[in-house]
Every structure is written in C-alpha cells, then in structure tokens.
C-alpha cells in the first residue's frame, strides 16, 4: 500500500513506524526539522510543509495513495487535510480528532468532511478505561463498529452463577448474542440447549451495555456494580467521557474537578454521577470524602505530573485499583513500575486503532481468539455480495462454513441478528468464524 501520513507527532510517528516495514510510507509535517529528523529514524519519505495545502499533497502524490492518515494535534487541520486529499482523489482517509462533536457530525452522515474513518482520541481512551474498569473478568475484550459493538470472552469460574445453565438461560439480553464456546480447547457453536460448564470460555457479541450486564451475571464478584465506588479525578474530556460511558453502563462514578465552571458543566451533563469541586491533590479532602475507600480511581488530570502525584497519593491511602491516563508514552512504564495498576496512553491507543485499519483485508477489524482457532471479523457488505438479500438462517443452512453472526450495525445503529434478519449492502456484520474458513467468509462479503 501507498500510505500518506500527515502530522509527525507521537501518533503519526508511531503509525509510520509500524507501517514502514510492509508499506510505502510518506510522512508530511509542517516542521522542517522534524521532517528531516524522521527521514533518518524511519525508512520513510518525508515532506516538510502544510499538510492541508494541495501543493504539498500533490508533492506527496496523494492522488496515488491507497490511504491518507491525518493525525496532527489539531482537529481542523486533520479534517481539512482529509477534505483536500479526497478532492485530489486520495484513497481511504482517516482523521484523528479530539472533539466528540466532530465525531457525532461525521457519524450522522457517512463521508462528511471527506473523512472515511474518524478516530476520536479522547473517546477511544475513555472506552479503553471503561473496558478495563467494567470487565475485569473478561479474558479478552475488543470493540467493533466504532465502539457500538463489543466482543468479550469470559472464562466460567467455579462460583459463576452461569455455570450449569443452558445458553438460552444465560443469554437473556435483547442485544447480546452468544457466538461461541471453547471447551477443552475445542470450539463449539452454541445452540439454545447447550450447557455451560465450569472452565468453558464463552464468547459473546453485543452492545457494550449488554456485555456489561452479562459480565455481572458471569462474575458478580469481580464485575463492578452500582455499589462499587469509582472515582474519576479530573474532569478533562477523557474524564468526562469515561464518566458518561460508565453512566451508560448503570454505574455511578464520582468526579473530582477543581475548576468551578467546569465542575458545574460536568454536574449538568452527568445526572447520575456525583461531581465534587475540589483540588484532588489535597489529601485531607480525599480522606474526608472517603476517596481512600474507593474501589477504583482513574486519574485524568491535565498533566502527567499531576496524574502521577494523585495516583501515588491514592495508592498510599489504600485504593485497590488505580488507572492513570499518561500523556507521554515514555512514562507508561514508569507509572506501572511504581505500582499504578494500569497506565493508558491516549496516543498509543489512537495509533493502534489507526494501524488496525491498514491490514490488507476486506475485514475492517479482526480479533483472534484461543491460539488462532477462531476469529471475530467485522465485514462491510458490498452491493451484490453473497451475504446480501437473504435471511441469515438461509445463508447458514446453505453454507458449510462454521460461523455465527453476532451483531449488525446499520447506519450506526445496532441491529440484533435473528434468523429472519435480511442483510443489506452497507451493513457492518460482526461475526465469529473458524480460522480455517476466514478466507471463505471474506470472499462472500
């Protein structure tokens, strides 16, 4: 592939680095020194100049590009760069944005701003944090369809209430599908009457909320519920999005924010959370409000230094799990070494998300399960492909491939698949398939 990366910050550099070995990569950056430096660090071509100008984009031969990735630190720059690239006939465009506002606009109309795929750093980070908080019992969790759908794999523990139930008893959630089970290393396609035994690994696909509810059923001890105290320190965009997503999962976090106006805004936006206006580095305040008894603390303040200070402070006060947002990738290991349970770097998360797109496959998104026995794929259906226009039950009956459709998204809405659901072109289908049959499935899409 020929890939043009606009913006050579941490995100851009890390994307370019992971692509450089297999693809032709051109990096554009406005800073000539940075461009010069990168030329030696990575095996890529660099161009110095404004990535939004058609002159520079023409110099980067965007018209020939299979993919254009705009990942500067500025939302508007990224959107304009994608728009320019589309005008010049550049291939698939990916924009990195911080504002969830742009994301909503883009979700509202496919291809808005000339962007084919949009990655919202803060939201993505928040989704990551919420996955870590919400599903500690899961062996594996992966988001699909831009976060609308989640795949999770759970190991059924001895004390799990689900053990001994049949699949139809356990799967009591409207928007959840039981797609597969692994028993003694063998994959089973579950039927309604399949029994769930201790030690089984169950794979479910559904809305993040229903996966969360299912996790509560599978592992009531470890999965947080509304009795658990989750404290988010810092009402930054990441902190806000994290609280919002937790609220969607029926959890009631507490948010600490120092700025009066921001605290008021947060309190208005987050009806189920408790917002406190105070400096979180005040140990006396933390004890007074029993933050030391919290089950989980997330630090999402403006700077790494503050996050480090608060993380260490609450860890010393006796908090079980501390999750820190770390802006600089270099500090991630430092945080984890001094005892912070999980350090999440927004730029790494973004770079990973964008890199996933560059896999050369019809499948947009892949998760590999159980030593590559099975894969969960997200396919975008094209006009006239083998899966379109027929009810799912018919497709399954006609095919000798073992696969289960877990979820469908249609125009950014989740559709729960049933036997009589008819697939349409443009639908995104998230399905589980045996690894041997992946090529057969992708050839049908």
């Amino acid at each position, binding site marked *: 592939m020929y890939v043009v990366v606009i913006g050579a910050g941490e995100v851009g550099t890390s994307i370019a680095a992971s692509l450089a070995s297999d693809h032709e990569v051109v990096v554009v950056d406005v800073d000539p020194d940075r461009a010069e430096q990168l030329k030696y660090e990575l095996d890529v071509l660099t161009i110095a100049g404004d990535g939004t100008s058609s002159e520079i984009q023409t110099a980067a031969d965007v018209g020939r590009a299979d993919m254009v990735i705009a990942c500067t630190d500025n939302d508007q720059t990224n959107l304009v760069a994608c728009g320019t690239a589309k005008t010049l006939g550049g291939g698939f465009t990916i924009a990195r944005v911080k504002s969830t506002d742009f994301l909503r606009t883009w979700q509202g109309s496919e291809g808005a701003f000339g962007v084919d795929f949009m990655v919202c750093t803060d939201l993505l980070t928040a989704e990551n944090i919420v996955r870590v908080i919400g599903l500690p019992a899961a062996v594996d969790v992966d988001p699909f369809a831009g976060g609308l759908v989640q795949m999770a794999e759970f190991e059924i523990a001895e004390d799990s209430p689900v053990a001994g139930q049949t699949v139809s008893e356990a799967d009591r959630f409207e928007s959840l599908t039981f797609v597969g089970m692994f028993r003694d290393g063998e994959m089973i396609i579950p039927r309604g009457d399949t029994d769930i035994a201790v030690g089984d690994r169950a794979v479910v696909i559904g809305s993040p909320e229903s996966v969360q509810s299912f996790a509560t059923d599978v592992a009531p001890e470890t999965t947080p519920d509304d009795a658990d105290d989750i404290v988010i320190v810092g009402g930054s965009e990441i902190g806000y999005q994290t609280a919002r997503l937790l609220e969607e999962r029926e959890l009631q976090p507490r948010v*600490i924010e120092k700025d009066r106006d921001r*605290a*008021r805004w*947060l*309190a*208005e936006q987050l*009806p189920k959370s*408790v*917002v*406190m*206006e*105070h400096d979180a580095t005040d140990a006396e*305040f933390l004890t007074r*409000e029993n933050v030391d008894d919290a089950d989980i603390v997330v630090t999402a303040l403006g700077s790494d230094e503050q996050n480090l200070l608060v993380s260490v402070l609450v860890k010393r006060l006796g908090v079980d799990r501390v999750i820190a947002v770390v802006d600089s990738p270099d500090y991630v290991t430092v945080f984890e070494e001094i005892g912070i349970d999980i350090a999440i770097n927004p730029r790494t998360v973004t770079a990973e998300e964008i890199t996933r797109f560059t896999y050369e496959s019809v499948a947009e998104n892949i998760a590999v399960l159980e030593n590559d026995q099975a894969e969960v794929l997200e396919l975008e259906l094209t006009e006239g492909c083998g899966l379109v226009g027929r009810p799912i039950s018919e497709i399954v009956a006609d095919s000798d491939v073992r696969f289960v459709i877990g979820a469908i998204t249609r125009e950014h809405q989740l559709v729960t698949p049933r036997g009589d659901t008819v697939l349409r072109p443009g639908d995104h289908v998230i399905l589980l398939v045996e690894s041997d049959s992946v090529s057969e499935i992708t050839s049908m899409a």
Partner: protein
Amino acid sequence: MSWGVNWKASVGLLGVGIKYLALTMLVPLIVAVVYGEDIWVFLVSLAVVAALGLAVERVDPEPDLGPREALLFVSLAWLAAAAIGTVPYLLAGYGTSSTVGLQTGSFAAFTGSIVNALFESMSGFTTTGATVLGAISTDQHSHALLMWRQLTQWLGGMGIIVLMIAILPEVAVNGAQLMESEAPGPELQKLTPRIAETARALWLIYFGFTVLLAALLYALHLLGMAPNMDLYNAVAHGFTTLPTGGFSPQADSIGAFSAAVQWVVIPFMVVAGVNFALFWHVLRGEAEVMLENAEFRVYAGALAVVTAVLAVLLFRGAAPPIELGGTTQGVAGNSLRQAAFQIGSLLNSTGYATADFAQWDTHAQIFLLFAMFIGGSAGSTGGGVKIVRWIIVAKAIRRELFTSAHPDVVQPVRLSGSVVDEDAIRGIMAFTLLYVVLFALSAVFIALDTTRVGIQLSVLESISASLATIGNIGPGFGRLGPFGSYLFFPDTSKLLMIFLMWIGRLEIVPVLAVFISAVDSR
C-alpha cells in the same frame, strides 16, 4: 411623579384593553334579551365602559412598552378589569336589597356596596370564587347578571392579557413580556415562534374544553340524567370549570345537580389544573411530552393519593350523616365521588363543592387545607403556589442538606431531566417565601380585624380566608364554607382580600415589582 416608568404607555394600552372588554358585555346582554330581562343595565354598562376605554386610550395612542411598563400594565389591567366588572353589579342592584348593588343611603353603605361589588368582581376575574353575593338565585338576580359573573371567571381563567395578545395586534408587539408577567408559573413556555400564535393556541384549547364540557352537560340534560341542567346552566358551568373558577348560579353549587353531572365535571376540573401547553403537545401527537412531564406526574399522583385518603376518611364517617349529595359513611360510591370532587375542586383552586365540607370533622378539614396549599400546575388556570415550584423547592432544600454534609459536591437541580437554572431557583425560593409570609401575615390581620369589629373567627376560618383568597381558591372553612359567604367581613378585611386575590392571580411579582420600582426611583 415619574415612578421610573413611562406610565402613559401602560395606561394608553390599558385603554385599548378596556375598550374591548366592553364588548364582552354583549354576552349578558344577549342573555337578558333571551330571558326578556331589563337590557338597560348592560347597555348602559357597555356604553360607559367603552367610552372610558376610548378616553383612556388617548393618553398614549402609540404605546411602546419596556419591561417595567409591561409589569405596570399587567398589574393595572387586572385592577381595571375588576373595577369595570363592578359596573353591572352596581347598576343592576341599585335600589334593591342586593349586597353588591349601589347603595346611597349613607356614606358607610355607599363605600360598603362598592367594596362588595369590587370583591365580587375581583373574585370573578381572578377565578377565586369567593362570594359576597347574599342570595345566589335567579329570583334575586337576573339571569344576565349571574351570567356576567360566570363570564368574568372565564375571561380571567386563561388570562385577559393572553386573550388580548391572541386577538389584538397592537398588544401582540410586546406580547412575550406581558405574557411572562401574567402566565401562572415560573417561566413562559413559547410553543410557537410567534407569541400571538402561542396565545391563540392556548385560548383555542381552553375554548375547546369549555365547549366540550357545556355540550356534555347539556347532553346529560337531554338524556334525562340531569333534569335541572338546562342550556343556561350548562354554559354557566362551562364558563367556570375550566378557569378553575368556582362560581355557580346555583346556591348549592354543583351539589344542586345529579351524580352524573358531578362525575362529568370532575375530569374537567382535573384538566383545568394541568399545564395547557401539554395539551398542545398532545394535539400534535406528542403525548409522551405530557407523560414525561415531572409536574404532571406529581399532579396526577397527588390527586390520586389525596383523593384515596379522603375517600377512606369519608367512608369511615368524617361527614355528618345527612349530607347533601348522599350519605358517605359506609357508602363507597358516594365517598369516592365526594372525595374526588372536593379534591379535584380544591387542590387546583376551582372552588366548586358538592358537599358542605365545612361540616366535616377536623381531620378531613385539615386534610383539605393541605390540598389547598398544593395548587395547580404552571401554565394551567389554577391558583396557589403551583406544583412545579413545590417540586423545585423540595429538590433545592434536599440539595442544601446534602451539600452541607458534602461541601464540595456540585449538584444541579433537575426537573424532567433538564437542569434548572440557579437564578430560576432563587426566584422560586423568593416567591414561595413571599407567598407564605403574605399568607401568614394576612391570616393574622384578618383575625385581628374581625376581632376589632366584634366578630369571633376560629383559627381555621382566618387561615382559610387568607389562603382561599391569595390562592384564588374561593371557599374556606366554617362560615366561609362552600355554601357560606364572605359578606360578614369588615370592609378593611375585604379590601385586604381583594388585594390578595389580585396579587395571588398575578403571582405577586408584577404587583410588588411595580411598587418597588416606584419606591426605588425616589
């Protein structure tokens, strides 16, 4: 005397209002013609009022109102409406034994008759329903005069100014400010971009319900289920149910009619206490707006709970054995009907009655007093503090208690899911406090004033006199019961009650704001 207000503009616009108010006297005039009664009373009244309007209009032919002028105009308009409303009472009763007729025997009799007429008229326009009319019957008064009394309540119900905005383009220009001052409830809900269309929509809904009720009542008569509910009575009660008024041309109020009539009136009284804007949403096919409205839910819930408790009290024998409308002790049907009717009538400030609840035992009476305090919904025609204010006050107090234990917590007050502005909360707290203070001071004043002239008033009577007038409810307890009268009060108390009805209808703020700005500018 400038008062910091361009009073000429307010008065000029007032002239326009008075001019058109004269036209409403055509309704009783037609009644007089139909019943072959004296038409001169209303012809003269119409001419006098129209002439007055045309004269006052000339103070400022091109009125342009700012916020202060709007407040002054609204306050004056209601005072003027009440003053104009007295003209037919005074003229018709002149030289007769009517308590509201003009008396010229002595100076005391002269002022007394004017105070009485003003009381009756203010009670009408503010939809209070308290009366000083000695004998309520068509033997004593003409059909036309009693219909005028009903009509004043209907005009006052949805608001005379809202009506003016709906039909008069010269008023509609300043409509939003005017409506804000008059509409019951803490904030103005604009349903359409144009204020005149909003006003028209509200009046059409109001008109529609009125016609529906009158038609249903008359249908009952034609079906033989309500022998004395003739066309006159059907229209008369249509006029006073929807505005939560409570006047009736019958001395026994709705108690004079059959149980079927009472059952029909109950849902319409309930409707009158609902925010009319919600019906507008229902008509547009958005019924969920109504069902999700926090105030509507509390209103419906309060009605159901209070009615159920009262029905039990009545079933167990809270009312005297021989009771108008049927014995309730041990009779479930009657208990439920009486409870539903009295609560439907008092909770949202209508003031009809089918039983003399002043005769009930103290448990039931105190319970009714509590119901009177609740009031209707914002944007309804009901009086009182309004349910939405109580909800917000309760939530704000709960927040205060919570934040005193957790001083760092930031917690907005929410209503139906949306955040209530802090300024609005402050305004609502101030209003509620002012309301309670005025109510309490007035109760004390009334008790002392009656003692001064040698009338012994019970605590319940003086409390209910104050509450029934400031809340625009009407009937109180004891001698002020639904079949009693306010006639025996001294003129000073009556004047205070007139004031209470006035500021109660305008929700205190416009009137007091005018006074404050007058004092401040000196």
